[in-house]
């Protein structure tokens, strides 16, 4: 099992111009904890939408790399997005599911992945170029390399522990998050 904060921090080391979308709840807190950045688009809602935001961004910016970091609950709510992404085959899009097999924001109820529902198999069935599960911190460097140079679409299911970690709260005003992101991207 991975320590979620350690894993996300290692993914975002020396991130350069990587564009990051974080799913609501703990994924947003993890990305914030790794260091605030203007090219982070933090979600605080819109559950089920993170992967599709990544697709729209990847299509708009084919020369940039786009990483969606989100939880298993968000990904499960947007499973159809995997099929939609599979049709478009964005080479520059990677999704990292921080999978603790629980709905952490609502009281740690078990999620579908705890019962063995397999997001990696779903991604492969949806024509993702690369999909794998990781559970050891030694694999973080390889996942980071995929985010920066892998041939997408990519999905990584990161098996993280279900320990409670302190919340790290980033910007919450959606207009500010958007404007800051757009301004930073214009100067890339």
């Amino acid at each position, binding site marked *: 099992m991975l320590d979620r904060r350690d894993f996300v921090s290692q993914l975002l080391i020396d991130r350069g111009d990587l564009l990051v979308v974080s799913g609501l709840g703990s994924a947003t807190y993890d990305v914030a904890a790794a260091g605030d950045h203007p090219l982070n*688009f933090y979600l605080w809602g819109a559950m089920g939408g993170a992967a599709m935001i990544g*697709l*729209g961004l990847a*299509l*708009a910016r084919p020369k940039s790399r786009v990483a969606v970091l989100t939880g298993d609950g968000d990904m499960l709510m947007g499973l159809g997005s995997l099929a*939609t992404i599979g*049709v478009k085959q964005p080479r520059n899009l990677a999704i990292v599911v921080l999978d603790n097999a629980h709905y952490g924001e609502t009281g740690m109820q078990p999620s579908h992945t705890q019962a063995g529902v397999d997001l990696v198999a779903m991604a492969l069935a949806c024509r993702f170029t690369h999909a794998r599960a990781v559970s050891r911190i030694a694999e973080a460097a390889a996942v980071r390399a995929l985010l920066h140079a892998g041939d997408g679409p990519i999905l990584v299911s990161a098996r993280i522990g279900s320990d409670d970690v302190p919340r790290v709260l980033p910007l919450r005003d959606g207009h500010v998050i958007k404007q800051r992101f757009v301004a930073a991207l*214009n100067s890339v």
Partner: protein
Amino acid sequence: MRVRSSLHTTTDIEASWPDAIYAQFRRVGVRQVGYVPDAGHSRLIALCRDDPDIADVVLTTEEEGVGLVAGAALGGERAALLMQSSGVGNCINMFSLLRNCGFGCVVLVTMRGEFGEFNPWQVPMGAITEDVLRLAGFLTYRVEQADAVDEIVGAGCDMAYAGDLQVAILLSQRLIGPKQWTR
């Protein structure tokens, strides 16, 4: 690119209203179009699919399109959504993304469950579609006549993309024609 009503017969206009929408997409530089396949939008979908400057994104459910619009806008591109009135109901919570962040968006809604509808199962959602859109923060405009499509869609696109507003244009079932039960 504009369809000018003075140059077309009534029949031309009735057949070409999707072309007028497409011409407006070209004029304002729409680069991504998300849709769930729909008979009323079939000609417009075909026009977008044939355009190498437009990424056409077929969705499994309409709410995916809301995320698509947001991502496109973050990347500096304008995106529009095509859906049937029933699809509006699938989007309600996701629409909060557009409102919270001020993502400009044009949604073209082909109406079911109103004028001449044969299928009563379409009526409950069709009857509340415009109210739902307004409650979700959209400006809504209805189009009843083919010769008004160009002007209304053009005005809607300008408001949405220049002002980061959410605009929905409801294409009435009277304009589209009732769904043909047999082909």
